[in-house]
């Protein structure tokens, strides 16, 4: 049997946006190949999510078990390996998330197959194999990766690569419950607890809009103007390495090579000079706006729109202007 499988990631009762995007993209890939698309959902008390997925995919493979409340390669990986052996999909895609990038390389080596990480596009080649497009060297070069023989072809894909489409009108798919073979003794890594930063915001890697400030913000006490703009745009706040190194913001907020790679629809950079460490992390953003005092700031080389000016003047004015525009 062939087919495209989408590994659906959920945490705390919610399906990740990137997984829904992959289902949208996967559907098209499947129709190009003339194959089915299945969703794979692992977790505990995931019934409602499985129901939702059944409206989007031809089949939904579900493991619903207390042992699967937290992710571990020992549970998720082993089960997925068994499922792949049983059903033999030709493609397995997942989000380029911390979980995806933890699980997929382990699983690929377990299945003795190939894996392409952090892809920015998946297309179908002449031989009906997939072509995974991925940035290398921090985005300085792109590579098209193919999988000559081994199956399934595995890849993790970034957010905002496939546009989110409503799939719910699709025919109701079959939900297939799988009994895990694992018991608690086979799961060696045990999650004691998860510590969430109480931002309530979408993670940088998944945000549609990101607003960020660099050293030009002059101090942690000034970040509120960025937060206020983010509030109006429902955006996530990011920053640069220099700011994190100065301990003005948490490392979780860092965009760039040693932080997070983002690809939002809109990225706005304020007081960011545009060091290569940073620009490597924003390369795949759709629209980039830069505001900086220095007309020669490197960031303008990466931006679509630029304003030379004082961020302390421009950010509050932007907040007010967006507020006005959005209320119209």
């Amino acid at each position, binding site marked *: 049997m062939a087919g495209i499988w989408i590994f659906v990631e959920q945490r705390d009762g919610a399906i990740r946006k990137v997984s829904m995007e992959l289902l949208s993209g996967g559907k098209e890939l499947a129709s190009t190949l003339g194959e089915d698309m299945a969703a794979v959902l692992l977790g505990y008390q995931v019934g409602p999510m499985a129901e939702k997925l059944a409206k989007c995919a031809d089949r939904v493979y579900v493991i619903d078990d207390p042992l699967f409340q937290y992710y571990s390669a020992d549970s998720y990986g082993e089960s997925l390996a068994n499922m792949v052996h049983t059903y033999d999909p030709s493609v397995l895609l997942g989000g380029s998330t911390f979980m995806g990038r933890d699980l997929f390389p382990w699983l690929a080596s377990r299945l003795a*197959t190939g*894996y392409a990480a952090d892809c920015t596009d998946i297309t179908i080649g002449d031989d009906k194999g997939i072509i995974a497009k991925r940035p290398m*060297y921090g985005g300085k070069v792109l590579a098209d*990766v193919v*999988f*000559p023989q081994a199956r399934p072809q595995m890849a993790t894909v970034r957010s905002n690569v496939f546009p989110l489409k409503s799939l719910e009108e699709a025919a109701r798919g079959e939900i297939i419950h799988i009994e895990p073979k694992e018991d608690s003794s086979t799961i060696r890594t*045990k999650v004691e607890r998860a510590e969430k930063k109480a931002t309530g915001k979408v993670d940088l890697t998944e945000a549609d809009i990101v607003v960020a400030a660099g050293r030009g913000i002059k101090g942690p006490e000034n970040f509120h103007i960025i937060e206020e703009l983010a509030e109006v745009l429902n955006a996530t706040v990011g920053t640069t390495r220099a700011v994190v190194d100065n301990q003005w913001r948490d490392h979780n907020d860092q965009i760039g090579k040693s932080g997070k790679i983002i690809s939002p629809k809109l990225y706005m950079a304020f007081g960011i000079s545009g060091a290569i460490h940073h620009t490597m992390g924003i*390369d795949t953003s759709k629209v980039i706006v830069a505001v900086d005092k220095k007309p020669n700031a490197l960031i303008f080389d990466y931006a679509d729109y630029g304003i030379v000016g004082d961020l302390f003047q*421009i950010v509050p004015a932007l907040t007010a202007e*967006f507020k006005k525009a959005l209320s119209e």
Partner: protein
Amino acid sequence: MDILVLVKQVPDTEAIIRAQSDTELDIENKYSLNFFDEFAVEEALRIKEKLGSGKVAVITLGSKKAVDALRRGIAMGADEAFQIEDPALEEIDGYATAKTLAKFIESQGYDVILCGKQAIDDDSGAVGPALAQFLGIPYLTSIVELKIAADKKEARAAREIEGGTEIITCPLPALFTAQKGLNEPRIPQVAGVMKAMKAQIQKFDLKALGLSPEDIRPKTKILKFYPPGKRPPVKMIEEEFPKNVEVLVKILREQEKAI
């Protein structure tokens, strides 16, 4: 406690890299130890220093340039260095790298294996998890904190996840991949640098590991390299404040439909 650290010499973030042809890259000769591997080496040294005993070995897979990654590890304080070098290893993927490393590491005693969360050349982050799979040991990726229990049988780590961290325990031996934030890597002292300049690197080829080129056939192939699409030149909004703000908002809403 024996700690193995996987290290890799990679083009510096500042190095100019261009696709020369479909299959060849033109890489400026500026290399350094992979950014994330430094955290791994540092953590290994800290574990050893804290326990007051043990041995830290650095391992790399690669040709002549790779030796500098080992030297850097020794300059920082590692005790031993191993290089796996073979012409057949020139064009391999994460799968084959992990398989080769696994074969070598099986013959070594170890309690902890550390490596960077990804190498900043191919940016895959595949070798760590794949190696753990081949060795059959537990692993945790992107850790920002690591504590080894007093009985040296268990570790507790904080792993980065979207919007927070997870605190996880696992038995040893285990593999961990280091994320920024794990520690502040030390700058080598000149005495360490001198030691590194004179260090004996122990070398192994595929044959010594009992592997044939057939065993490490890669599972993926790069069809072609190409430059990223160039962004159109920046459009500077030249109007005076506050007109420029109005113009920008209008463009983002009406033209780009981004908001």
